[in-house]
């Protein structure tokens, strides 16, 4: 077992847990939003914002999960028609491209998140520091980087998917 696979699996477990929490939060905040507005006639000013921030976190965390589970939308017609050997090469190459991109993007997002103007921003309804939803992009690309490194390394070793 490679260390990178272990790390990728641990991250995936955390992601599953987070996904459950985020999806439930999104559902509850919109549902309570309706209940409070209609039955108690006192609309919750924070419900839409909580739901949208949950969606954003869900998208980046979930986006990384789709890499791990190979569920992302792809065009595979070309690769499917290749011979066994060239197929393995192309798939390794594809994982490498994704890995390279996620590393590069992780670097860009790190530069972005530490820029001074990030810290002064607050959300419009809750006055929440915007770094809380923004950080989802960084976290998502970090996890994507680990997952795609694991996939790339595995594709070099033996199994082709």
């Amino acid at each position: 077992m490679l260390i990178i696979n272990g790390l990728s699996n641990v991250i995936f477990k955390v992601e599953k847990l987070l996904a459950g929490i985020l999806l439930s939060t999104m559902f509850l905040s919109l549902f309570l939003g309706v209940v409070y507005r209609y039955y108690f006639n006192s609309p919750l000013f924070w419900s839409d914002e909580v739901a949208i921030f949950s969606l954003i976190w869900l998208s980046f965390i979930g986006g990384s999960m789709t890499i791990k589970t190979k569920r992302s939308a792809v065009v595979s017609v070309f690769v499917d028609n290749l011979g066994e050997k060239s197929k393995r090469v192309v798939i390794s190459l594809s994982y490498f491209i994704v890995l390279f991109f996620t590393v590069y993007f992780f670097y860009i997002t790190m530069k972005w998140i530490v820029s001074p103007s990030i810290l002064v921003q607050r959300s419009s309804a809750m006055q929440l520091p915007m770094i809380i939803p923004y950080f989802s992009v960084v976290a998502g690309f970090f996890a994507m980087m680990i997952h795609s490194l694991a996939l790339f390394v595995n594709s070099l070793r033996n199994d082709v998917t």
Partner: protein
Amino acid sequence: ACGSSEGTTGESNTEAAGEGESYTFKLTHITGPSHNWHQTAEKFSEELEALSNGRMTLEIFPSGQLGSEGDMIQQIETGTVDFGFITNAYLSTRVDTLNGWFMPFLFEDLEAANAAKGTPEAKQMLEDLSNDSMIALDFAFAGNRHILMTDGTISSPDELQGKRIRVIGSPAIQDFWVETGASPTPMPLPEVYTSLQTGVIDGIDIDLDALVSNALYEIAHDLTLTNHMAFPSVAIMSRQTRDSLSEEDIAIVDEALATAIEWGIQDQIQREIDNLEYLKEQGLNIIDFNNTNAFDSINAVVYEKYSENETIRSIIEAYK
């Protein structure tokens, strides 16, 4: 040819006439091409070209084409976009002082709000907003806020009790509406039409331009002209862009902008008249709200809360 990009700050060409550098600036804002802010931007473009003898041109990206206001600010700060008209509502989440414009019933009408931008307090707001990467130059006013309801005009806060009113999700606006006893409901603008129609909300805090362009008069017929708040945007310039210009060119930019904004306010005043005319033709029930004392106790609570900020306190003192 598609691959070439126009130089903004760094890459600029020497003009054939040799009078100085040529620039193609980019300006972005959130409203549509028919809005006053867009027309003001067009005017700014004309002025820039005229004053610089054609050395300066302006590409305008309306309707949030380059992203949300958060995105716009970032593009201005990094110098990829040179100018922006950013709403005070968004900027007030970054800089407290700007809530001064949202103090309820402080400005009698559009002209009063516009006049207030000459005060030291307004200058202080621009200064608070400016930083290492951007500079706030001026305010451009959209129409003042009024109240549109589906079930009757308003003569006092009593008629707002328990009513679900769509408001913009900015803290000071929220605070005012909570104090009125209404149920302020945040909601994105595209959802408003159907929500008013089905009764998810009973009314909306809105300016006449947005009322007309979103066709809300089709489904809500009672308009109370309250003028309860001003609604400016701030003209922002990238610090990088500014630093790259010569003294003379900076003067050209400033003069062009000042002329455009002055033109803009006259245009907006005329729009208010035209919009009202149009809404009357559409058969809206419109009343002028003049029982402002009815809101005194509500205003006092909001004023008190925001008076912790020295600039806001003195603007309240000046205009109360």
